[in-house]
């Protein structure tokens, strides 16, 4: 059965999967089985309300994970995304509270987020600091900045037009999910069909070969970290709207969820293997497990343990199937 699904899958998606069909298909099959199981074992799972909540909650993590996928494909890692979520959520809400128009507040906050990514890229490429350390540093610096500008206080009392966005839907689908969907489509297109996308894979595969092939490494690395920070920034604004407030501590630990979704989805930490579709499936799989665990009344502590094991197991399974 799996093999026929595989062949249909490759017919449908063609040849752009860089040999990762098998791991993507594995995640898809696991997700499908889980969803079927939950549909039969819980009356609530396949209801509109539950699906609405599940996808709305996943969207925020999902957007961050897409950015993380770009970074991991180059063989890097971005630990600063959680702090960037906090940064844009605080900056946008502060500006909105002070009377700045909502759209301008959002754009300015996003620029601040992108700036963090650009700095990450510069430090990593020109400073030759390993991505783990560089982004660990900026994660801490940005979190400090957030507390400094917000005085570590929560920001509430925002205009209705901002807070209602996350609650509303369009064509029956949550607005937040639309944003994720648009991000997915654009990111998929960029990675599979543009020069920038190919360069991401090339750098992740072999940076020295890429340099000798005339690929501008510095520019591409900066773009990649800027992309990750920008998407984290978008997630921050989505979160601020959903919580109807700016909270200085928000976003902590999100980087780990994003990494988990990416890795479970089949993107290799060594770079060049994987892609957007895997990450989307990985995000949904993790969210479904959390959601299903709650519905079935599984002890949340045990659920935590299960998710941790799944992450490690996913990597082992993919290594096996990649051979």
């Amino acid at each position, binding site marked *: 059965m799996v093999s026929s699904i595989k062949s249909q899958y490759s017919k449908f998606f063609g*040849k752009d999967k*860089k*040999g990762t069909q098998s791991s993507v298909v594995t995640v898809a099959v696991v997700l499908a089985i889980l969803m079927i199981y939950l549909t039969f074992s819980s009356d609530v799972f396949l209801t509109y309300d539950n699906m609405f909540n599940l996808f709305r909650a996943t969207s925020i993590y999902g957007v961050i994970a897409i950015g993380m996928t770009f970074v991991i494909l180059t063989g890097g890692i971005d630990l600063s995304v959680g702090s960037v979520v906090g940064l844009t959520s605080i900056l946008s809400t502060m500006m909105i509270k002070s009377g700045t128009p909502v759209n301008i507040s959002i754009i300015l906050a996003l620029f601040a987020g992108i700036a963090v990514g650009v700095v990450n890229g510069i430090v990593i490429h020109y400073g030759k600091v390993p991505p783990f350390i560089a982004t660990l540093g900026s994660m801490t610096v940005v979190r400090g900045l957030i507390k400094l500008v917000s005085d570590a206080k929560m920001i509430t009392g925002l205009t209705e037009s901002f807070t209602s966005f996350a609650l509303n839907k369009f064509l029956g689908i949550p607005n937040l999910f639309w944003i994720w969907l648009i991000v997915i489509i654009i990111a998929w297109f960029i990675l599979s*069909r*543009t*020069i*920038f996308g*190919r360069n991401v*894979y*090339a750098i*992740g*595969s*072999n940076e*020295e*070969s*890429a*340099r*000798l*092939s*005339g*690929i*501008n490494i510095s520019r591409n690395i900066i773009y990649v970290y800027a992309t990750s920070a920008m998407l984290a920034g978008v997630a921050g604004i989505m979160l601020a709207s959903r919580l109807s407030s700016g909270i200085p501590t928000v976003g902590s630990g999100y980087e780990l969820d994003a990494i988990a979704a990416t890795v479970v989805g089949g993107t290799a930490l060594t*770079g*060049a*293997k994987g892609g957007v579709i895997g990450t989307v499936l990985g995000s949904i799989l993790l969210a479904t497990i959390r959601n299903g665990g709650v519905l079935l009344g599984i002890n949340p502590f045990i659920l935590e343990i299960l998710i941790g094991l799944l992450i490690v197991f996913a990597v082992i399974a993919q290594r096996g199937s990649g051979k």
Partner: protein
Amino acid sequence: MMEKFELLRVENLHKTFPGVKALKGVQIQVLSGEVHALVGENGAGKSTLIKCVMGVHKKDSQSGGIYLEGKECEITSPHHAMKLGLGAVYQDVMMAKHLNVAENFFLGKLPNKLGVIDWKFAHKKTTEVLQELDIDVDSKCILGSLSIAKQEMVAIAKIYANKCKVAVFDEPTALLSTEETVILFSLIKKLKEKGMGIIYISHRMEEIFEITDRITVFKDGEYVDTVNTVEVDEDKIIELMVGRSVEDMYGIKKPEIGKTVLSVKGLSKKNVFDNITFDLKKGEILGLFGLVGSGRSDIVSAIYGATSFDKGTIVLNGKEIKVKSPRDGINNGIGFLTEDRKHTGLFMELSCRDNTNVLSYKQMSRFGIISKKDEIENADLFMEKLKIKTPSMNQITKNLSGGNQQKVVLSKWLSNDSELLIIDEPTVGVDVGAKVEIYKLLESLLFQGKSIIMISSYLPEVMGLADRIMVIAEGKQMGIISNDEYKLGNFEDEQKFIKHASGIV
């Protein structure tokens, strides 16, 4: 001389991978004090056999056996193989490059007293073994700081110290210069005198005839024959390997030489190379011969723009060019096939198609969006032109044979229409059949009006193919010798080149 006895015997060995029968009943026998060559084209099953013997792969259950000193053994893991006295040295030495020589020697079993490492003993023991084998290496050196040749010798010494009975050398000279090869051979001869049995895998016929006692030939996973080295010649072996006779490996046709394409004057880089001056004409191959570390690769990477230089001019088609980055080299139509295609040429995890197109995305895209149609067409064109053997252009490059990988690198540069190709060791790790194909490709490139600078530490290759050979010793240009001044296969001429390359005028 000691009495020779049988150390290792493999009988009727089968190995099946999903969908492929890699070994179909092969055999080999290694005696004590024997150097036994194992030859065959890529895909003949040499590596698979070695991996079965070394416990990396498990042989098929209904297959024949592996016998060590007459006793049948079921080898379960590389560690088990080592315990039984089987050792292997691979071309890219697999040891811990950041640790020192003694640590590498005792890796996993450092001598200790209650967990505290006895460094004195470790260094003493290591030095003893190194001295016994006349290897000039300090046990305190960091392994990675040594030349590849020295690292290899350390690896060999380690096997020896482990009381290994049968050692497998897989392309040990692939990355060595001619001079280093001589030293390696004297080491192999020493091991042989000490009664070790050696399986020697190499694509270089000259070496096989110099060092081995017997030759076993595989073809397409099957055993062909075992012969005494002294009773056969090179043509006979090649005939057994490929099933057809190769008249003259290096016989390529040459076009009329055209006008000067590249003119390098006074190229210098402090402590690396000095005052390099030469011309290259259209349709010509200029050979660059020198020992590893002589600066030959540095010279060409400076011309390409991959590394910097201090002084000198590079004139291409009558115009001086500035090459500050690889991009500049590419834009000026210079192609650079690096020596180490795995690490500096290819993207191993990416498909043949991506590897072929990576330089040409600009031409096949608008606003940064790549035309899928152009991509597929271009890759198809080169797969066909270069006869790249792969089930599909979406195949991951890692899964291709060495010869086909080299063709993929070549297709990348041809796709960019490079008119000057710099080729660094084009046939390292490439089997005889693919070698001939690559030479034919070079021939057709010359006829298309391209010019080639070829680096090779393999004398017959450079002597057979080049119109002129520039000899480099320690960064200095020792002279440019035209091909009417020497004869391929002439021993004295070869000696002359080696002397020049060693800095003896």
